[in-house]
């Protein structure tokens, strides 16, 4: 009989993953650190145009690009004369499952169907679950979504409960788990039991599926302003959103567009803590995923993660929860758009960044998400308040994750907080050095330079300082 203990299942991880992906990662696993990233992305056997065609057939993409004129006007009111870039948003809420995640699911499931899988499994507590369930429904594939939902008292946050409901509406089986990283164990057992496809967020398919988003941004901005945007802001968690968008931007030649990540600052809350779980008011797009995934991408449900943000991210900004709730209110009251939390993290960053940039420059916030029950600030802050979180107007800088949410008293209180990119980059090099025997060959040094956008000499300097 098969041994299904935690240790035994985790020991079978590599073989389970291999048979559930329909992709051969062997050539990319020869060295403990370096691999040919572009060759791995090349496992996707479709051109960009073919990817776009597959998405059109899946009712995905070609979303509107909306100029946020009122928010731009407000930013200009606060900014020094001549400053205040134009802010645009890509209305990804218009995708079938209500978020840009439909793009990732569409291509992955197209591949799963073509490879002959009867069903798909996804481990996610985010919008991706609904996206996979929706795309599976379209293709008559079985779908199982494994979610982290409840604390040990059986209490779940409204936003995650909503994501579970959305999966069920598309006909998925939803396994709702309590807090713990052993979600991965349950996920592997489901893959093994069913032989279904691992619709991971981190395969080359899941990243190539986002590239058209970057392409559409350039095409639509060219139609409006005659050029690519000066900056694109992506809400950053696992890294696929930013990586795929940036690759799309590059593929259509937008090499000067600054690619910026934005996350909600939840510093101090432990991701595997049963106690901290319901003290987070953002369930994705926060530092609990954003920082570790940027600093070391290969911590996922695939042998090599195709989402590698340090290759593309020029700047990484942190927002406070209160600032994002405030911008969600501003989007509703000034622009007449009610949208869910994910894109509003980037929007809050864009609003402040616009004030640093010239008024003839442009910023694109590259996603919105749908706003169903459980996703509104009203739902999340009611939940928070009932759990003793201090919610009031105040200086967002004084907010303490898990204890308070401070809604700005004035938009001028919002600000940009830069993550030290060099610290993240050096951290990645150090972690790689710990995995491989010294001295690292030049090929590995070149790989790490590409991974971090450092020069080879910078990488050598970090290595020699160890």
């Amino acid at each position, binding site marked *: 009989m098969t041994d299904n*203990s*935690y240790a035994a299942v985790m020991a079978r991880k590599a073989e389970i993953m291999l048979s559930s992906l329909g992709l051969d990662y062997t050539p990319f696993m020869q060295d403990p650190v370096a691999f040919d990233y572009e060759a791995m992305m090349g496992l996707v056997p479709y051109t960009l145009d073919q990817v776009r065609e597959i998405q059109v057939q899946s009712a995905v993409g070609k979303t509107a690009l909306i100029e946020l004129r*009122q928010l731009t*006007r*407000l930013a200009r*009111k606060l900014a020094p004369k001549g400053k205040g870039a134009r802010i645009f948003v890509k209305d990804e809420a218009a995708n079938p499952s209500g978020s840009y995640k439909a793009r990732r699911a569409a291509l992955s499931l197209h591949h799963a169907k073509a490879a002959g899988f009867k*069903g798909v499994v996804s481990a996610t507590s985010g919008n991706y679950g609904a996206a996979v369930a929706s795309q599976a429904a379209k293709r008559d594939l*079985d*779908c*199982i979504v494994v979610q982290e*939902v*409840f604390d*040990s008292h*059986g209490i*779940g946050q*409204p*936003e995650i409960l*909503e994501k579970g*409901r959305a999966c*069920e509406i598309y*006909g*998925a*089986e*939803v*396994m*709702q*788990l*309590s*807090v*713990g*990283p*052993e979600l991965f164990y*349950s996920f592997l057992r489901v893959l093994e039991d*069913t032989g279904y496809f691992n619709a991971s967020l981190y395969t080359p398919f899941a990243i190539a599926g986002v590239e058209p988003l970057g392409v559409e941004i350039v095409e639509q901005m060219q139609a409006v302003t005659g050029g690519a945007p000066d900056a694109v802001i992506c809400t950053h968690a696992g890294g696929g959103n930013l990586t795929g968008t940036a690759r799309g931007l590059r593929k259509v030649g937008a090499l000067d567009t600054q690619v910026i990540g934005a996350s909600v600052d939840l510093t101090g809350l432990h991701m*595997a*803590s*049963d*106690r901290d779980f319901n003290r987070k008011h953002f369930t994705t797009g926060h530092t609990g995923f954003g920082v570790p995934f940027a600093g070391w991408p290969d911590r996922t449900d695939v042998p090599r993660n195709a989402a590698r943000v340090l290759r593309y991210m020029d700047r990484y900004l942190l927002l406070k929860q209160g600032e994002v*709730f*405030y911008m969600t*209110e*501003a989007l509703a*009251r*000034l622009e007449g758009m009610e949208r869910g939390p994910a894109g509003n993290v980037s929007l809050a960053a864009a609003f402040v960044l616009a004030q640093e940039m010239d008024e003839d420059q442009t910023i694109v916030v590259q996603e919105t998400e749908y706003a169903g*029950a*459980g996703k*509104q*600030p*009203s*739902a*999340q*802050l*009611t*939940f928070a308040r009932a759990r003793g979180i201090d*919610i009031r*107007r105040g200086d967002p800088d004084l907010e303490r994750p898990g204890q308070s949410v401070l*809604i*700005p*008293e*004035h938009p001028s209180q919002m600000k940009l907080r830069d993550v030290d990119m060099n610290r993240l980059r050096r951290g990645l090099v150090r972690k790689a050095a710990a995995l491989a025997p010294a001295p690292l060959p030049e090929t590995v040094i070149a790989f790490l330079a590409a991974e971090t956008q450092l020069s080879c000499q910078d990488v050598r300097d970090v290595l020699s300082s160890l």
Partner: protein
Amino acid sequence: MTEQAQAGDWVQIHRIVLTPEQRPANLPDETRAVPLEMRTKGWLITKAATLGDEVTIRTAIGREMTGRLIAVNPAYGHDFGQAVPELLAAGDDLVALMRDAKES
């Protein structure tokens, strides 16, 4: 809440996936102190059951699963919450700020 369920009812079951002793050591203490639990929904196969009974269900995609019956067609439970007066006031402030901007 309904305590009795018949075969064919849409129900929710609960199961312990890992007991505290079976969980890995590298977890925060408060997580390691409690079991890893699973809840899932499906059509009841067991002929008749009362809350708390061990039952078998058929999930939305047709898999059979066993567990303890914890609810008959449970409410989703999440909603829009209450309005947040601090945000309503913030919205009013922003609208007022924009009107000032227009006048100046």
